[in-house]
């Protein structure tokens, strides 16, 4: 049985060689016009020249690459099989509950690879790194809101309120009490979580449209308070000169009296250091959020969130305290939004109520819905689409938002459940000898 199962996933070296030859042949066919032939400008007239060595190298790379890729896939699959078969009948490994679709796993890892290396390739291009940072803020907000909307099924139109609470908590603590970014981060998270419970408590009995209206109002209340409570929040003028985050106490600024990041590591000071540092900081925060949320989803509380989304009455009949489950979803979603807010305040150095309008809530919600409710990778793709589309559309000036709206409509027509609507089970029953 075991060998039979293995045989369906691995192929013999001869077959692998054949496969690579076929790929090389296709590469050759494509390569002759594209690489093998080229035009050279010779005294004003174009003449066709040949580049056979380059073409040969191209075909060789395709051949070798195919061999390696095929080998890697086989290794990966065989490894997965042995791991699954090692699992006992009665004790299902909850560890095997990771993404069953290898394609999505690969896309996820590839996205992580791109995210990690992006500043290396674009270290001199501030615009790219800045835009990527913005995308990551929205990814993190999307992952946070995913807990409330995607998992627990509580439609929250005021998520930006928690983002604002996080940002203002850091802004006030930093400018009035001299707290650093790292000290304020947990406090701001706790503060936002408290606000999550404050919002959650009176809305426990509400669902769907009614809940959406109350949360919408809550988001506006927080913004209006920030505009009007001038002593606390600076009113419409906001809070300025918020300190930037430090690298373990080393500041990222031009050389001065204190040791800075550049002087400590003996580097020449460059303003791009700070941009890249901020990028990696939000990347780390977002990745921690991702790991945290995907682990929570596989715990009893995560399953209870999803069950609450599916059927609240059935949850009660199973002995689940609906109040605690809902409040925990609100609190954790709000906490993650608060963390993102702290980062936002630290990155901008200036916050005002204008950054926390309803349209922000709408964009974050659109990211979750477009991505596919509950899908982590979907949020990344949707955030890319929603942040990059308006950026790319800058050339179209006033048609920009039209383009944006049209893209959203098209996604919803083609993929009504979101870009990645597939729900991955939190655990999987694997019987002995079963190759699934």
């Amino acid at each position, binding site marked *: 049985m075991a060998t039979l199962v293995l045989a369906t996933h691995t192929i013999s070296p001869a077959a692998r060689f054949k496969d690579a030859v076929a790929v090389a042949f296709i590469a050759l066919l494509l390569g002759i016009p594209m690489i093998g032939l080229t035009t050279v400008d010779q005294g004003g007239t174009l003449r066709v020249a040949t580049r056979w060595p380059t073409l040969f190298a191209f075909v060789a790379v395709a051949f070798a690459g195919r061999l390696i890729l095929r080998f890697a896939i086989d290794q990966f699959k065989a490894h997965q099989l042995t791991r699954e078969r090692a699992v006992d009948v*009665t*004790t*299902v490994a*909850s560890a095997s509950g990771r993404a069953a679709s290898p394609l999505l796993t690969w896309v996820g890892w590839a996205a992580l690879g791109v995210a990690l290396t992006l500043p290396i390739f674009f270290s001199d291009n501030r615009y790219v790194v800045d835009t990527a940072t913005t995308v990551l803020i929205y990814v993190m907000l999307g992952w946070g809101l995913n807990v409330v909307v995607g998992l627990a099924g509580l439609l929250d139109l005021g998520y930006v309120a928690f983002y604002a609470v996080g940002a203002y908590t850091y802004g006030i603590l930093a400018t009035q009490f001299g707290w650093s970014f790292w000290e304020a981060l947990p406090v701001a998270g706790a503060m936002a979580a408290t606000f999550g419970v404050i919002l959650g408590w009176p809305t426990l009995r509400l669902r769907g449209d009614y809940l959406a209206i109350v949360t919408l109002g809550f988001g506006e209340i927080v913004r209006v308070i920030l505009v009007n409570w001038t002593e606390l929040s600076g009113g419409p003028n906001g809070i300025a000169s918020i300190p930037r985050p430090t690298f373990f106490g080393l500041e990222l600024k031009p050389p001065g009296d204190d040791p800075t990041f550049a002087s400590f590591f003996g580097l020449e000071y460059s303003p791009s250091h700070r941009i890249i540092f901020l990028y990696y900081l939000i990347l780390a925060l977002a990745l921690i959020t991702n790991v*945290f949320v995907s*682990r*929570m989803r596989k*715990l*009893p*509380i995560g*399953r*209870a969130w*999803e*069950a609450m989304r*599916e*059927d609240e*009455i*059935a*949850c*009660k*009949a*199973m*002995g*689940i*305290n*609906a109040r605690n489950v809902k409040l925990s979803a609100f609190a954790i979603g709000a906490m993650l939004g608060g963390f993102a807010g702290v980062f936002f305040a630290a990155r901008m150095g200036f916050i005002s109520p204008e950054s926390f309008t309803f349209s922000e809530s709408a964009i974050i919600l659109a990211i979750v819905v477009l991505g596919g409710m509950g899908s982590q990778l979907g949020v990344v793709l949707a955030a890319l689409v929603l942040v990059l589309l308006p950026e790319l559309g800058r050339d179209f000036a006033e048609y920009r938002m039209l383009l944006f709206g049209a893209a959203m409509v098209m996604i919803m027509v083609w993929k009504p459940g979101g870009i990645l609507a597939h*729900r991955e*089970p*939190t*655990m*999987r*029953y694997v*019987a002995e000898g079963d190759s*699934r």
Partner: protein
Amino acid sequence: MSTASAPLLSVERLTMRFGGLLAIDDMSLDVAARQITGVIGPNGAGKTTFFNCLTGFYKPTEGSVRLNHPQRGLMRLETLPSHEVAHKAQVVRTFQNIRLFPKMTVLENLMVAQHNALQHASRFSLAGLFGLASYRRAEKKAIAKAIGWLKRLELIDKANTAAGDLPYGMQRRIEIARALCVDPLLLCLDEPAAGLNPRESAELNDLLKHLARDEGIAILLIEHDMSVVMNVSDHICVLNYGRKIAEGTPTHIQQDANVIKAYLGEDDADEELHAEAKP
């Protein structure tokens, strides 16, 4: 009729009023441990309302529902919220119009039913978040229990399928399996045979008898399918317009003049009882 020892559940003078409508009128009923008690009556007689009052979904207007819990002693179910009725009193119900978690797999449905034990073991999710051994043991145990019930109800092949994608009869069984994962003392089944074919009904009969005799679970059964009720029940209570009109063994009920009148007079659709009632 009922055993000499104190009943597991005793409902006393239960009344449920919705504005001017008297849904349940001064109803009393004893449910014995390890026995199957059937509750029948024409449509709209107040059977499901009775279940809702027992399991904390409605607060009865008057009357009391007492449970003799072997470990916790006397419990007043009418004072408890619905999740505590299931969790603490271990009185678990199913629903007339199946309420599964449709997008979750069958196995996940059964894991959600064990939420309280698992949540306790995960120590507010901290032990679970860091994958501590104590939590992993509890999770393994919960999975083993879920798999055990899935195997006995012949649902194991569908463990990884989304519950909402399965046929109706299977969903009924999943709902029972899920309720069993809560470790019920008293299992309240609201029309478990509705929509089942004759073969599935016969299987349900065997399952219910097995649960009561061998697992020691008391069962309270609302059912229209007389082939199920008359076959499995030890004791039957008949409701009409919210009032108890008869109570006794299946043979006794089949000959009761009030019951025959209630069914023939009120609802043409339920003629089976009449057919059954004639020996």
